């Protein structure tokens, strides 16, 4: 509009109003503005206009929203089957998207809460020397392909503490289970080198009958109480002293972690630069003298 005077052009702020009001009153409002422009000082007029916009736009949108909402609910009530199917389709769509995103987020976007996660590997059905804790630790230290290795075994057990019993997922692990992936307990400590238990026992009270509990269990069973350290938790009736709380997001242990000797799986890290294939080949070769 090249012939529009400068003073009138900014009145295109009318575009900020809801379409319904604009359709009915834009011409009248612009006319009123032009009339007023002839009577008032321009700067004062603009100040009043901006104040008017600030005061009148929110109620207009609120009114339009209320009208649309009422109209929507009337339509829904008139066609309950269509509404039901639409809500169901939306629920399925949102649920599916959420599920897919959760998987993508966990697998692709978020890295594991471990130090150098790309150098971690999990080996199942592989038995390394584990007749005693000393034998296992000697084996992992002399490895030239693996930087380090830890053992863990998972099972479900009856867990009791603070007067409440529950079925919980438990992991027995070697004493370097937390130090290997660089996981720092949020409270207390991980396992000390001398706390491994030989055989299938639960350790000696006051020496190595110790446990680190998961963050979720700490919140649920102990209400996040920081005095949990030193208290006793029972795993299948065996008393263990809690020495630490695993960080949130650290999925091992699911609920509780105990230092063990027996193992079903290893948790090795490769040496920097050693390809995974070489490490696996070396592990295959090292099995022979053990089982041969």
């Amino acid at each position, binding site marked *: 509009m090249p012939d529009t005077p400068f003073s009138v052009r900014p009145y295109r702020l009318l575009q900020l109003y809801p379409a319904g009001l604009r359709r009915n009153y834009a011409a*009248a409002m612009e006319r009123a503005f032009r009339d007023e422009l002839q009577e008032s000082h321009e700067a004062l007029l603009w100040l009043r206009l901006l104040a008017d916009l600030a005061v009148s736009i929110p109620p207009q949108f609120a009114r339009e929203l209320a009208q649309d909402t009422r109209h929507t609910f009337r339509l829904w009530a008139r066609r309950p089957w269509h509404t039901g199917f639409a809500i169901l389709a939306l629920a399925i769509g949102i649920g599916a998207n959420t599920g897919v995103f959760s998987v993508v987020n966990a697998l692709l976007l978020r890295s594991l809460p471990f130090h150098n996660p790309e150098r971690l590997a999990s080996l199942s059905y592989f038995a390394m020397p584990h007749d005693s804790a000393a034998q296992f630790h000697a084996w992992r230290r002399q490895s030239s392909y693996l930087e380090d290795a830890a053992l863990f075994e998972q099972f479900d057990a009856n867990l009791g503490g603070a007067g409440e019993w529950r079925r919980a997922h438990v992991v027995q692990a070697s004493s370097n289970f937390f130090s290997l992936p660089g996981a720092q307990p949020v409270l207390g400590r991980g396992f000390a080198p001398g706390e491994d238990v030989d055989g299938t026992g639960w350790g000696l009270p006051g020496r190595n009958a110790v446990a680190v509990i998961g963050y979720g269990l700490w919140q649920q069973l102990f209400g996040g109480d920081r005095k949990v350290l030193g208290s006793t938790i029972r795993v299948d009736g065996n008393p263990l002293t809690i020495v630490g709380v695993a960080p949130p997001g650290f999925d091992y242990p699911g609920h509780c972690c105990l230092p063990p000797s027996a193992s079903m799986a290893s948790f090795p890290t490769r040496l920097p630069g050693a390809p995974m294939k070489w490490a696996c080949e070396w592990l295959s070769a090292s099995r022979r003298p053990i089982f041969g």
Partner: protein
Amino acid sequence: MPQEDQSAAEGLTPLSPAVFHILLSLGEGERHGYALRREIALRTGGKLKLGPGVLYGSLDKMLELGLIEESSDRPDPHLDDERRRYYRITPYGRKVAQAEAARMRELVQLAAARFGVPKHA
């Protein structure tokens, strides 16, 4: 006044100053938007100057509530802009204005009893 209309009219009170002043002006006869604005500013000594947004927003709301209606009567096009839209008060609008006036009268009576009313207020 039937009981239903009376309670519906009272349900709309208290009115905003803009809506009540518009009803007051339209009670005298048909007006277009800009004339309403000028009349209200004159009546209030310039204390209430309705901006276009508040004025036409209020008119739109009042049309929706049935307090006013658009008038199809137009003055001679030579005397006025034919694009102007004229409004007039409806019978329901009068009842609402009466209900608001009654509410304000009760309030004024209460204030007068409590504090007294100065002669030249």
